């Protein structure tokens, strides 16, 4: 039995909350409205608070699951992502009639999967978490059973994800075959003990990278992203594009930190090319989009490109910047997709997706459009938003490690990105209003989520010292332990 059970409380809360919701859905026939919503929200919040407050005695649970500050940071982040997604979903799901137990329960299980992925010290836990997360997402993407686009997106994600998982599993198996260890640290250290097997280890890492690259939509494994993001309900897209990407990236960061020097040296050129490709392809393709969800899908690919760019510098002090940007990215991307969902809440058909339907929204819906504009400006990396501070930290880390060419590619693509982010701002504020479908009034939950996101973006943009200090300590601790 694990002796360090206090550290597992967040995990237990998420699993327990999810199970409770399923039980309530199954056995409680006449559910009063809002019970499931409240249960899910309370579970997410409680998990976050537990991760924040409880300092476990041991750094890990039986060497399987990380309980240190690094994992707790991400648990808090996932709890926040889940909580905000639930707030954005409330009205949206009600109007469309899918606010059942499967929605809220699976959200919590998805969050649990993310926590396991980000905290995995063992390949089995990692795979378990990944499959749990994916399983929840397959259903969530296709949660609107009546709609073809949603089902298609779910199926597409399922097939592509299964293929990626196969690659990943094979990579893990190869690594195990060489090292004889299922521990992440132990298996990667095999490169030092069995230098002759370096090619096999590199092959297995390449296969693992394919699996992770798929989930984080690294070019050239990104092709599913726009279709799935467009087909999924917008708040679910928010959950998918922030939570699952951040979780996989957190795991990737850990693997990178644990990878011994000879292995890492071989990985760098490949990662360089992939990062450059991701930034260029993501940003250039986004230019042509006229549908806002596809535009943001390509933007999220490009954002991952900036993170992969900095991944190269992770061993030379780039880790705090990456942690900071992951948190910032989660907030701003979640805000953008969540607000698109809230603009679409009244339509029982597809989401408000055409850019032309956003014309004049800045004046008819000043509050929500304002928050969306701030999210977009933050994604574009302009001050005084968190996106600027995040990008600043990323480029600082990259230049600190002397990847000048990559940084210049990054800046050039960032200039390109200004155009498409501002395309949405132009539509909302500068273009004449069109007589489109009316926008429904938002409920309190959406307003609350919007306010939280606005405050976070401006706070992290103007006074980021607190978070910078925290991620710096976490990064130092992780570097010591690896």
């Amino acid at each position: 039995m694990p002796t360090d059970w206090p550290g597992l409380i967040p995990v237990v809360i998420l699993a327990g909350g999810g199970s409770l919701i399923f039980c309530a859905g199954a056995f409680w026939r006449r559910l009063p409205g809002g019970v499931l919503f409240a249960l899910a929200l309370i579970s997410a919040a409680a998990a976050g608070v537990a991760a924040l407050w409880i300092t476990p005695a041991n750094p890990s649970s039986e060497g399987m699951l990380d309980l240190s500050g690094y994992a707790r940071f991400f648990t808090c982040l996932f709890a926040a992502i889940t909580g905000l997604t639930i707030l954005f979903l409330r009205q949206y799901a009600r109007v469309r009639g899918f606010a059942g137990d499967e929605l809220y329960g699976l959200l919590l299980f998805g969050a649990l999967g993310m926590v396991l992925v980000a905290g995995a010290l063992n390949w089995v836990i990692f795979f378990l978490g990944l499959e749990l997360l994916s399983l929840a997402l397959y259903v969530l993407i296709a949660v609107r059973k009546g709609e073809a686009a949603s089902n298609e997106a779910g199926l597409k994600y399922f097939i592509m994800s299964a293929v990626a998982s196969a690659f990943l599993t094979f990579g893990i198996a190869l690594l195990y075959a060489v090292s004889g260890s299922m521990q992440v640290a132990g298996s990667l250290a095999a490169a030092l003990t069995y230098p002759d097997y370096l090619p096999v280890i590199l092959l297995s890492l390449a296969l693992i990278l394919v699996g992770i690259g798929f989930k984080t939509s690294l070019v050239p494994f990104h092709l599913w992203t726009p279709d799935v993001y467009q087909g999924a309900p917008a708040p679910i897209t928010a959950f998918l594009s922030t939570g699952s990407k951040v979780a996989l990236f957190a795991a990737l960061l850990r693997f990178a930190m644990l990878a011994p020097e000879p292995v890492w040296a071989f990985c760098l050129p490949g990662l360089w090319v992939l990062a450059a490709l991701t930034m260029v392809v993501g940003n250039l393709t986004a230019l042509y989009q006229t549908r806002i969800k596809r535009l943001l899908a390509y933007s999220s690919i490009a954002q991952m490109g900036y993170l992969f760019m900095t991944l190269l510098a992770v061993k030379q002090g780039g880790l705090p910047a990456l942690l900071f940007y992951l948190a910032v990215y989660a907030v701003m991307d979640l805000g953008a997709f969540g607000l698109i969902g809230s603009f679409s809440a009244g339509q029982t058909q597809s989401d408000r997706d055409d850019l032309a339907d956003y014309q004049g929204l800045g004046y008819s819906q000043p509050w929500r459009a304002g928050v969306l504009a701030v999210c977009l400006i933050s994604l574009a990396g302009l001050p005084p938003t968190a996106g600027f501070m995040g990008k600043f930290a990323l480029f600082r880390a990259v230049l600190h490690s002397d990847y000048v060419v990559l940084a210049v590619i990054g800046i050039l693509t960032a200039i390109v990105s200004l155009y498409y982010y501002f395309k949405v701002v132009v539509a909302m504020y500068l273009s004449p209003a069109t007589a489109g479908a009316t926008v429904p009034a938002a409920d309190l939950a959406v307003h609350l989520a919007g306010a939280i996101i606005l405050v976070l973006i401006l706070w992290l943009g103007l006074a980021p010292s607190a978070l910078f200090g925290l991620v710096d300590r976490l990064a130092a601790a992780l570097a010591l332990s690896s």
Partner: protein
Amino acid sequence: MLQFPILTIIIFWPILGSFVVLAAYRSPRLVRWLSLGISLVEMALVAALFFLDLQPYATPQGTWLLLEDYAWIPWLGARYSLGLDGISLLLVLLVAFINIFSVLISWKAIDFKVGSFFFWILFLEGTLVGLFLAADLLLFYLFWEIQIIPMFFLVGIWGHENRIHAAVKFLLYTLSGSLFMLIALIALYVMHGHQTGIYTFSVYQLMQHGPLGTTTEILLFGAFLLAFAIKIPLIPVHTWLPDTHTEAPTAGSVDLAGLLLKTGVYALFRFAMPLFPYATQLFIPVLLVLGVGGLFYAAWIALAQTDIKRLVAYSSISHMALIVIGIAIWNVTTLSGSLLQMINHGLSTSALFIMVGMLDERTHSRDFAVMGGIWSKMPVFSTFFLLFALSSMGLPGLNNFVGEVLILVGAFKVKPVIAILSFVGIVFGVIYILRMVQDCLFGQPRAEHVFWDLDFRETVMLAALALAVLSIGLHPGPVLHLLDQPIQAMLQQIAQLGLP
């Protein structure tokens, strides 16, 4: 030394005020009066700084009249440090002064979304004040990029027919330059950190870096120069300016020409040149060629314009080119002349844009083809128009003359050819201004319009501007006195590096 955080207050007073104005959007009347009140208080605060007669004192961050320095992001080594010296004091005065006119000129001209309009005008004022006060490079960069957003909305929402195109062009041009500067800024910060072990954005400390290597320094300076040249704007990256001016509402043009263009020259002088003295030496011929070229080219293009506003926009480019020549020659006389000329250009060009806006309100056109014979219909307006046109031309006794003479005299001592060319360029400028005056004010009316002469609000505005133009023209002493100490300090600092 004041303990009272007056610099922070003059930055955040208009920014906080802008949100109050936005909250009052339901009553346009209240919005206008609130905005005027906020601008006047800001002017009073800044004027108080001017009349306090502050004395410079040395700090670890350089010599300033006032310095406010607090920890901001220790992890990055960025500080919230605001420094006031003579140059920034003058420019902040200009910002506060011109902003009153931006509010007044929009009193009747802006009749929809009034709350948002004045929100952006006041927000812009705050960011500009911050930009001119920032003594930390990251803080400066923050303000530098933020100020683009208000102008984007001002042009894009309240502009003329092609406003969206112009706003996006403005945004993309200015931000592209800035992002290259961001890379250079981080690179400089990292290299300085490698050299000294201190990671800091303090401009004063960054200036004390060791040699960076010629290629590196040229690349970094080039990136800074690109950002600032776009803003000034120097040829060949000036093409956004005429479009933006043509489409901008009058207050937008006033802020753009009067204030935003100044940020480019200010940053070039304050940051780019002292930070990279070696590269500056190499780039001086380039700057001179671009300056002289711009002076002639813009004047030449101005002659061909049929739209008065476009003409004034090109005259702006021409005047800014002369300022750059003065900066590039880099001695006490030309620097004083150039910095003074920034104020003068801010006053005269703003006045001209305001008057073009007044014509536009009356005739709904800015085309020379429908002007003419205005003198007989609007004598007061025409008198002011002539005064500001003559000021822009450099008539002795008016403000521009002082600045131009200083630049020419200073240039003649070291680079007589440049001085002669600049002189010819200035004379060239006289032609298009006289043509503008002639086509607008004199001759026969070419179209029937209902003209009404200036009302009280308009008269007060123009009289205040005329007073400023005359007082600098006749008694430039106090202004030049403010500039003297910072210029000497700057030159001394560069001289210590042992450059020619």
